[in-house]
C-alpha cells in the first residue's frame, strides 16, 4: 500500500495516488481575495451598515416617563423581570430547568443584583439637596420590608389602572414613600444622572452595563422600540438587526425553535432550545462517526453533480503528485 495508511474498514484510497492536473492554488486564492474585496467594497458603498444610536436612560425618561415610573415602582415592589429572575443575578427564583437539571441554580448567583437597591435606591442615595427625596428614603428605610412591598404593589396597581399609566392620575392611597421615590427617580433619569449612577462602583471608566441594561429591559420602552423594528422574540428578532439588513442569518435554526411549540409556550424555552441546539451541534461536529448519517451523502447522490467524468478533449492527466 502506498501513500498514507488507511483506517481499517475505510476503503477510501489515498488521494495522492490519482492522476493529477495543473492547479494554481495561489492564483485561485489571489483571484478569490480580489473578488471578495471588490464585492465587499461594493456592498459597503451601496448599502452601508446600520447604526441606530443606543437608547440612554435619559432618552427613555424623555420619551416614556410613565414607563420609567412604572419600572421603578416594579423594582421597589420586587415584581420586575430582574427582581424575579433568579441566577445569576439573585435567588428570587431557581431559573429554568433542562429536563430535571436546574443548571442555572447549580451555577448559582455570580453577578449579584438587588433590583430595588442597585437599580433604584442606590442611585437615589447619591442625590443631595432634595429634602423630599431625603425624607422618602428615610421613610423607606424605617418601614418594615413587608409593608414596603405592600405599598409599592399598591402603587404599581394604581399606576396600571391610571389612564396611560400617568402618575398624576393615580388616586390617593397607602403608597408610603413610593410615589416620591419614583418621581425622584424619573427626575434623576431625565437629568442624565442615572446613566452614570448605574455604573459599578461609580467607576471613572464605565465598562460593565449589566445594571443599566437590566433596568432598561425591565421597562417596556426598549421592547416597544425593538418590535417597531421587527426585532421581537416572536419576530425572529435575535438574528435580525435594525433596518433592512441581513443580520445573523446563520442563527436561523436557533431562532427557529422559539417560533414553534413546545418551545414557544414553555416556561423553560431557553434551556430547552439550548439543550436541543447543543445536541444538534454535537451531531453536526461528529457526523463522521455517526452510523447512518455518515453514509447519507452517498445515497443522496448530490456528489454526482460534483464528480463528473472528464469531457472529451480534456488534457490528459499526469502521474500522481502529493497535493
Amino acid at each position, binding site marked *: 500500500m502506498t501513500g498514507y495508511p488507511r483506517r481499517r474498514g475505510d476503503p477510501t484510497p489515498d488521494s495522492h495516488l*490519482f*492522476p493529477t492536473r495543473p492547479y494554481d492554488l495561489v492564483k485561485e486564492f489571489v483571484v478569490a481575495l480580489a473578488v471578495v474585496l471588490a464585492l465587499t467594497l461594493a456592498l459597503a458603498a451601496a448599502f452601508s451598515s446600520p447604526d441606530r444610536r443606543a437608547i440612554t436612560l435619559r432618552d427613555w425618561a424623555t420619551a416614556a416617563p410613565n414607563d420609567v415610573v412604572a419600572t421603578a415602582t416594579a423594582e421597589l415592589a420586587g415584581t420586575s423581570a430582574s427582581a424575579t429572575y433568579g441566577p445569576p443575578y439573585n435567588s428570587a427564583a431557581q431559573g429554568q430547568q433542562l429536563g430535571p437539571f436546574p443548571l442555572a441554580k447549580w451555577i448559582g448567583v455570580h453577578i449579584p443584583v438587588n433590583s430595588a437597591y442597585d437599580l433604584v435606591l442606590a442611585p437615589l442615595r447619591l442625590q443631595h439637596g432634595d429634602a423630599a427625596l431625603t425624607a422618602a428614603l428615610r421613610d423607606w428605610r424605617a418601614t418594615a420590608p413587608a409593608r414596603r412591598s405592600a405599598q409599592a404593589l399598591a402603587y404599581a396597581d394604581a399606576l396600571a389602572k391610571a389612564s396611560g399609566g400617568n402618575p398624576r392620575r393615580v388616586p390617593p392611597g397607602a403608597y408610603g414613600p413610593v410615589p416620591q421615590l419614583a418621581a425622584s427617580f424619573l427626575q434623576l433619569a431625565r437629568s442624565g444622572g442615572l446613566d452614570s449612577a448605574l455604573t459599578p462602583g461609580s467607576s471613572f471608566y464605565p465598562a460593565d452595563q449589566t445594571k443599566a441594561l437590566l433596568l432598561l429591559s425591565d421597562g417596556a420602552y426598549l421592547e416597544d422600540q425593538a418590535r417597531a423594528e421587527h426585532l421581537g422574540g416572536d419576530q425572529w428578532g435575535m438574528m435580525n438587526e435594525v433596518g433592512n439588513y441581513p443580520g445573523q442569518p446563520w442563527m436561523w435554526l436557533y431562532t427557529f425553535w422559539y417560533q414553534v411549540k413546545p418551545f414557544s409556550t414553555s416556561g423553560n424555552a431557553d434551556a430547552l432550545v439550548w439543550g436541543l441546539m447543543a445536541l444538534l451541534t454535537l451531531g453536526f461536529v461528529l457526523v463522521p462517526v455517526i452510523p447512518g448519517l455518515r453514509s447519507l451523502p452517498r445515497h443522496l447522490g448530490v456528489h454526482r453533480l460534483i464528480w463528473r467524468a472528464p469531457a472529451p478533449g480534456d488534457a490528459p492527466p499526469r502521474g500522481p503528485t502529493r497535493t
Partner: protein
Amino acid sequence: MAGADAAPHRSWTARLRGRIARTIPPGQWLPDRQPQYVQSWIYVFGVATLAALVVVIGSGVALALGGSAWWHTSPVGHFLNSMHLWSVEIFFAAMVVHLWGKFFMAAWRGKRALTWITGAVCFIGSIGTAFTGYLSQSNFDSQWISTQAKDGLNSVGVGAFFNVLNPAQMLMWHIVLLPLVVGVLVVAHIVLVRRHGVVPPFDAVPPAQQETTPTTETGASELSGETTRFESVEAVTAVRVTTRRSPQERP
C-alpha cells in the same frame, strides 16, 4: 557542543523539522497540481471562505485602530464598519456552501474526520465571534440583542461567566479570544487538508490498484455505476514516486 555534534538529529530543532516534514512533506504545502477529479466550482468556496476571512480580519484590524466607538462619528470608520459587516456576510455565505459541499462529498472519508471536525468547530466558533461582534457595536442592536441573548445563556448557567450585558467583556472575546481560537482551528484545518489531500469520489479506484491492465486511453476516467475509475498509463509512475520516499517521510 560535542553532544550536539554527535547526534544533531536528536536536537529539538531537528525533531521539530522532522515532525513538520512528516506532517506535510515538502512540496505538499503549495502543490501546483491536484487530483484529476478536482474539477468543480464547489472547490472554490473553501478558498473563498479563506479570502473572506482575510478581509474580515483586515477590516476589523483597521476598525481597531480608532478604538471601539469611533466608527459612530467618523465617516471613514463607518465605511470600515460596513466593510466588516459585509465581509462577514460573504464569509458565512461561502463557508455554508463549502460545508454543504463537503457534506455531500462525505469529505470525512479516508482519515479525514478531524478535517471535518475542525471545520465544523470553526463554523461554530465563527458564529460566536460574529455574535460578540454584534454585542460590541455599542448601539441599539447591541442593547437589544444582549438583553435577549442573556436569557438563553443564563438558562444553562453560561451567563454567569459569559456576561453579554458587559460590552467590555464581549469586546475582548470578539477581538482576542474567539479570533485566536478560530485562527488556530483554521490553521489546523488547512494543515489537515494539505496533509490528506482532497477526498476522492465514492468508490474511486486509483490506477495502481486496478486489477485490469492499464491499457485504456490515457487520462480516461469514467463513471460506471457507483465506481469511478481513474486510469492512466502513468499509474506505474505513481507507484514509483510514492515508494521512493524514505520511511522518515511517513507518519
